[in-house]
């Protein structure tokens, strides 16, 4: 990319002007990762200063039995009887929250396979049961792909599905299932689930109903930079539409492809450089989405921490207990303690802010109170010699 192109982009970023498709592609191709990172950091600090968000959340997957056949997925099983298949009873699902009630999460995040035989009442009762255990819990449940599946499976409109789930306690939608919107890619990696238009329509309807949502992008497999930019700009257009709705996209989460054990295992995994560049370009293109998450499960805690200097302002949460990336071979831990998240953020020179799902501040941690005692220390004399807790 000629320097003049970066000069133009730099001027537009400083002026708060919107970047084009070609400029997005140019940023993905630009050889100087740190220059791209600096621009993204400028926007990140303009929006959020040093504040970096996380929450205390519990991840529950109630079934991995799935009618879909996404090439990249190592989590799903076709039939209940397949090795490794599971479907929790409602009591088993609720138990996952009950055992955490001594240190309760503020959010339960539910993502599942598209089970062909569970009744809709199972999902409604799942939400009601979580609410009975902890009435102020925020339920961020069911991707747009699941909502589309429910609508088709149970003969309802998106609005009907979302309204019934909201009545049962649903608070917002997670962003999974977006993968890559462009049909050249989507038809090859996940051709039998919701299309891009259907995914976006679910979010559009959710926003009209006052349900906030997140969005994702699975990157680093067969897609091109042009496909990534196309994906980001479709989300930006959706967010423009939702600006007059009672709710909108809250956060964008780039998800790194993990190839182990799935139908695309011949592909190399995306690298740390790709992770950071994707965070940065996302921050620069999605000028109307408030938050960019460095999802530590997907990109490891270390890269996620570095990502806090490349445009990201959110590390997601404590997660306990994610299995989808684990099935795909992720070497990230399945949970981080709150103090570990706080440390990651502080070591990045940022101010940790515990939030709820809707980005209301629960607690702003003082920048000087590093909870060092919470970590095993190998050599305290050297001040920073810590080992993972």
């Amino acid at each position, binding site marked *: 990319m000629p*320097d003049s192109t*970066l*000069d133009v982009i*730099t001027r537009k970023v400083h002026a708060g002007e919107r970047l084009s498709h070609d400029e997005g592609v140019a940023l993905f191709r*630009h*050889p*100087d*990762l*740190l*220059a791209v*990172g*600096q621009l993204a*950091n400028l926007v990140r600090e303009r929006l959020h200063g040093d504040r970096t968000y996380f929450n205390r959340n519990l991840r529950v997957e109630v079934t991995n039995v799935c009618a879909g056949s996404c090439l990249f997925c190592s989590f799903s099983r076709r039939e209940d009887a397949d090795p490794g298949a599971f479907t929790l009873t409602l009591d088993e699902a609720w138990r996952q929250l009950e055992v955490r009630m001594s240190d309760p999460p503020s959010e339960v995040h539910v993502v599942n396979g598209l089970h062909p035989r569970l009744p809709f009442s199972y999902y409604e009762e799942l939400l009601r049961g979580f609410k009975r255990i902890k009435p102020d819990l925020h339920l961020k449940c069911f991707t747009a792909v699941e909502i589309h599946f429910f609508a088709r499976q149970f003969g309802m409109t998106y609005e009907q599905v979302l309204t019934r789930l909201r009545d049962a306690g649903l608070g917002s939608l997670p962003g999974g299932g977006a993968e890559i919107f462009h049909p050249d890619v989507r038809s090859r990696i996940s051709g039998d689930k919701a299309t891009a238009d259907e995914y976006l329509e679910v979010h559009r309807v959710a926003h009209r109903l006052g349900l906030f949502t997140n969005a994702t992008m699975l990157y680093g497999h067969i897609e091109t930079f042009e496909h990534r930019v196309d994906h980001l700009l479709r989300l930006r257009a959706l967010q423009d539409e939702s600006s007059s709705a009672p709710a909108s996209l809250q956060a964008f989460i780039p998800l790194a492809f993990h190839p182990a054990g799935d139908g695309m295992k011949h*592909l*190399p*995994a995306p*690298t*740390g*450089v*790709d*992770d*950071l*560049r994707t965070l940065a370009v996302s921050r620069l293109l999605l000028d109307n989405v408030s938050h960019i998450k460095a999802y530590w499960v997907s*990109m*490891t*805690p*270390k*890269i*996620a*921490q*570095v990502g806090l*200097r490349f445009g990201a302002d959110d590390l997601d949460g404590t997660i306990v207990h994610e299995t989808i990336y684990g099935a795909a071979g992720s070497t990230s831990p399945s949970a981080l303690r709150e103090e570990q998240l706080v*440390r*990651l953020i502080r*070591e*990045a*020179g940022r101010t940790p802010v515990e939030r709820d799902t809707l980005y209301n501040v629960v607690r702003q941690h003082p920048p000087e109170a590093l909870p060092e005692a919470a*970590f095993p220390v*190998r*050599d305290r004399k*050297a001040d*920073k*010699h*810590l*080992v*993972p807790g």
Partner: protein
Amino acid sequence: VSALVDRALAESGLLPIAEARRRGELARVEDLAAVLETADILAVGALADRVRAEEVGDLVGVLVGVEHEPGPDVVSVSVADVSTSGLAMLRRVAVARITGPRAARVRVDGAEVGPLMAEVALGFGASEISWATVEGSLDSKHLESIPVRLGGRAVRVFHPGSEEHATDA
């Protein structure tokens, strides 16, 4: 790009140390090095990357299962004591480049920092990644795509006994 980097260096107070490094005044660099511990990490990384480009060029060395004597031009960066912090790792690599000998082979241990961080370190002043064993090292598909991701840098892989694989940008 240079203008952007220059602006970042100026805003972070790094221009004096950058100038000292360019003039080869390593004692002066050492005197000014304290600023590297607190300056913006992206600016420190940009300076380290500039020093690497000017003094070493674009060749990335990947040593797999190779025992290399630590010669005077090799700076092996140990990050074991900051292993919980990706940013601390990168700052240490960048400081090693900026304060190290001219045209040093700044090396990170891939097994120690992990493959994702190892590649990122190449953008913060490192010029070599070493792997004690082949197991767990970067695979060939990954290696071949490094030049693309790093903006046209060439990768040369060293296996025991010979230079076995090279990919040019």
